[in-house]
């Protein structure tokens, strides 16, 4: 049995961070805003209206292109992609066809360099809400045009990705990059970032590409990973059973954890692209591009390399993958917080909660932990309360009367009681089984929850020898 090689190219749609839509002044709707409340004559496609390019969207596109090391041509233009669908009010989508905003970049995922074919700008369509689960069975369908005209950047990679893991890492790295440069919040669950992998498989060693399928409806990194895994298996079975893969678009069903056929490319639409006559070609000002390039923050790959000089790889994997965690870490350390302990705290106690303390508070917390004035459990509670109330950790500690007991003289009575009630363990310890000390410390901290474990351990050891 030959091995199969997986070949994946990614199309990622990202909503740039802008106040208004791509071609009109409408504000961007939040996820659950009432339908058709962020619309005007332009994004509704009423007769006689014209689009005007949103400069902020172009800027976000350019920043993204620069961060992906793309070339930015002098001339770019918008085109019309023509098709009729009820969520497309003009009967065409304004997109970019043969002269995109940028071309030929790359993004490194570990050792793998994924080439970026293009980054271009376009507008989103509206949304259909069906009464019933499928269009042809629905009694009624409703159109919500809040999203119609929302700006999108489409980032298209070359088919350089070789596994579901790499595809997920690519998407995550892209998200980190977009957040770092402030081009997008790129939240997959909120639809601000949509990944559509194009997947094919081929015999190991073959240089020809197999027939590809494109996956849609993927709303999380996990779904991306699973959908690709499922699709690769499906294609493998089809081929090994003597069949051929059909070129088509397939949807990922989160409920059923499988892909299903949506649209066969045999009946591919002819989009009749032509230059958008309502928008003059965009001549990009070189000075503006150079200003944007100069203003780019440190990119995640560079920052990660720098963090690796201070921290273990396991911690860098978490902190270096999130701009906000990395900022927090560096700011707290700059104030004097200990590097590894702070990183450890961020990885275990900050990242999982998704809520960030201010660097000042984190520094204060780390100082109290380090000086042995606070238990880890207490510190966790103090952090939560500080984030929720905005009061300083010191205030909260004072109010709760939190503090660790680190004074030997206060603990001595309890330590002696522990020794008295565990004669078996004391005997074992004295015979050389020194690991029972942990159980003894445990007993002590049960009796005195605020005891500093290190002080308790030292004290017990001293009393036993």
């Amino acid at each position, binding site marked *: 049995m030959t091995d199969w090689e997986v070949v994946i190219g990614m199309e990622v749609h990202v909503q740039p961070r802008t106040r208004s839509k791509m071609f009109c002044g409408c504000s961007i709707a939040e996820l659950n805003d009432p339908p058709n409340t962020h619309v005007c*004559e332009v994004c*509704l*496609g*009423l*007769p*006689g*209206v*014209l*689009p*005007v*390019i949103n400069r902020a969207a172009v800027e976000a596109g350019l920043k993204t292109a620069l961060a992906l090391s793309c070339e930015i041509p002098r001339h770019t233009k918008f085109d*019309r992609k*023509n098709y*009729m669908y*009820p969520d497309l*009010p*003009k*009967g*065409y989508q304004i997109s970019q066809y043969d002269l995109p905003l940028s071309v030929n970049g790359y993004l490194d995922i570990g050792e793998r360099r994924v080439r970026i074919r293009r980054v271009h700008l376009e507008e989103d369509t509206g949304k259909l809400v069906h009464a019933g689960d499928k269009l*042809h069975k629905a009694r009624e*369908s409703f*159109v919500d045009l809040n999203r119609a005209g929302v700006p999108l950047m489409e980032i298209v990679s070359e088919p350089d990705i070789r596994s579901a893991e790499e595809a997920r890492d690519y998407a995550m790295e892209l998200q980190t990059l977009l957040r770092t440069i402030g081009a997008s919040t790129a939240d997959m669950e909120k639809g601000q970032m949509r990944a559509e992998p194009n997947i094919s498989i081929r015999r190991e060693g073959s240089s020809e590409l197999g027939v590809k399928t494109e996956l849609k409806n993927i709303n999380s990194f996990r779904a991306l990973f699973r959908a690709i895994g499922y699709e690769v298996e499906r294609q493998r079975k089809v081929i090994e059973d003597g069949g051929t893969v059909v070129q088509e678009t397939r949807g990922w069903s989160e409920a059923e954890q499988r892909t299903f056929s949506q649209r066969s490319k045999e009946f591919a639409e*002819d989009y*009749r*692209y*032509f230059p958008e*006559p*309502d*928008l*003059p070609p965009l001549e990009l000002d070189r000075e503006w591009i150079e200003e944007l390039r100069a203003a780019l923050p440190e990119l995640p790959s560079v920052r990660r390399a720098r963090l690796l000089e201070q921290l273990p790889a396991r911690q860098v994997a978490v902190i270096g993958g999130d701009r906000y965690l990395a900022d927090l870490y560096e700011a707290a350390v700059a104030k004097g917080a200990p590097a590894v302990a702070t990183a450890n705290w961020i990885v275990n106690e900050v990242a999982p909660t998704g809520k960030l303390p201010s660097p000042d508070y984190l520094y204060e917390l780390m100082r109290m932990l380090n000086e042995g004035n606070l238990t880890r459990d207490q510190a966790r509670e103090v952090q939560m309360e500080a984030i929720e109330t905005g009061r300083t950790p010191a205030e909260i500690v004072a109010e709760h009367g939190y503090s660790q007991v680190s004074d030997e003289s206060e603990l001595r009575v309890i330590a002696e009681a522990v020794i008295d009630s565990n004669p078996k363990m004391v005997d074992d310890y004295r015979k050389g089984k020194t690991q029972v000390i942990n159980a003894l410390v445990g007993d002590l901290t049960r009796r005195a929850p605020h005891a500093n474990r290190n002080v308790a351990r030292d004290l017990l050891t001293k009393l036993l020898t």
Partner: protein
Amino acid sequence: MISDDLTQLTIKEASRLLRLGSISSADLVTAHVQRIERIDPKVKAFLRFTPEVWEKQADEADRNIREGTARPLAGIPLAVKDVLCVRGVETTAGSKILGGFKPPYTATAVQRLFDAGAVMIGVTNCDEFAMGSSTENSGYFPTHNPWDLDRVPGGSSGGSAAAVASGEATIALGTDTGGSIRQPAALCGVVGMKPTYGRVSRYGLIAFASSLDQIGPFTRSVDDAAVVLSLMAGFDPLDATSSDRAPMEVLNNFGGGVKGMRLGVPREYYDVDGIETGVKAAIDAALFILQRAGAEIVDVSLPHTDYGLAAYYIIAPAECSSNLARYDGVRYGMSEEDAPNITEQYMQVRRKGFGAEVRRRIMLGTYALSSGYYDAYYLKAQKVRTLIKRDFDAAFEKCDAIVSATSPTVAFPIGAKTQDPLSMYLCDVLTLGGNLAGLPGISVPCGTSEGLPVGLQILGPQWGENLVLRVARAYEQASEIHPEVADIASPDARRATND
């Protein structure tokens, strides 16, 4: 009874009477309404009237005149082509598919005239979505030429041309995609001007072919055209293709005459196929007058003229096929409640809502843009368009402006070309080059042929409106031919104005 003479005035004449206090804006409107009641059942220039708009605007104009704050068009009756959106006024682009559509916004060009004090009388008829050269493609009814009611007024802005020619409005707005202002102006004997592409904002103009469409005025004098155009002109933040380049200098020195100017006569236009001898004679006379006024008449060539028509009838339909995709009967206009599904609804609405010519152009354009045909048609047409532009660039090295007939023929009988779309397309052969190249052009009356008006077209280089107006004004003065108002009341209107 208010004198019917008030319907014969230019802006300049009417403004003088208004400012002297001899008449009020309300009088001027009343005179027009009375005339419309008498003659529009025959001319049928208007689709709708807008009393709710004119009452308010006339009141305001009168108040401003009394208070001495009158603006340049205070009280001047204006007719608006049905492709220009006016807030709250049914606007249908001459099409059934937009029946009942009342835009929640006003086209920038119209708004600028409102801001200048104009008083909107009503909405004028046109070919559906401005596609046609006779106004017979209107989804509602054809308009009649005021000089001969059995003939067409030209098109697509036929209603606007007829309204000004018949004294139903002092000024009117039209749109010109391939000649739709200049050709009806010629056929109705009024002044019609198409500005440089980008001079006037297209915001609120229901698009036919976006890269060709421009809004312009119909008036009874060259000065009036200059005034109206200058008030509409200039950059609009809502139209990315609009521009402030080379601003127009109005009421200034374009009275400078043509002495020493070189006026080019393209031989391809002068001897165009199908040009009527009467039209040619009128143009010869006009050239003689211009020469006598001091211009040098030079021979120029626009060698790709023949390909222009073909290129135009690919580019314009291509853009229209996309521009008209939004008319699906879902959000506004005609609807089809009983359709069993969405695809069927699209098909039923578009089959019923669009007329034959619109459907034909959607098909042509869709075909020209389809994969496998794009290079052979659309792309090639764009290359021809570049060649046409170069033709004009080369010609303007030899001359200051280009002069020709506006239309090879005078107004033709209603129904004469409706069965033969190609013969109708040929009506635009002398005008559409100006659209492909984005140039400013004007048509001014230059006499008659068989008792019907002939128009002289003057084309200038890009942003050369001042120059075009200067030549037109010089001709108007030297020829002493001024647009007249057709007297529809007389059964012999045509003979009465002959010779």
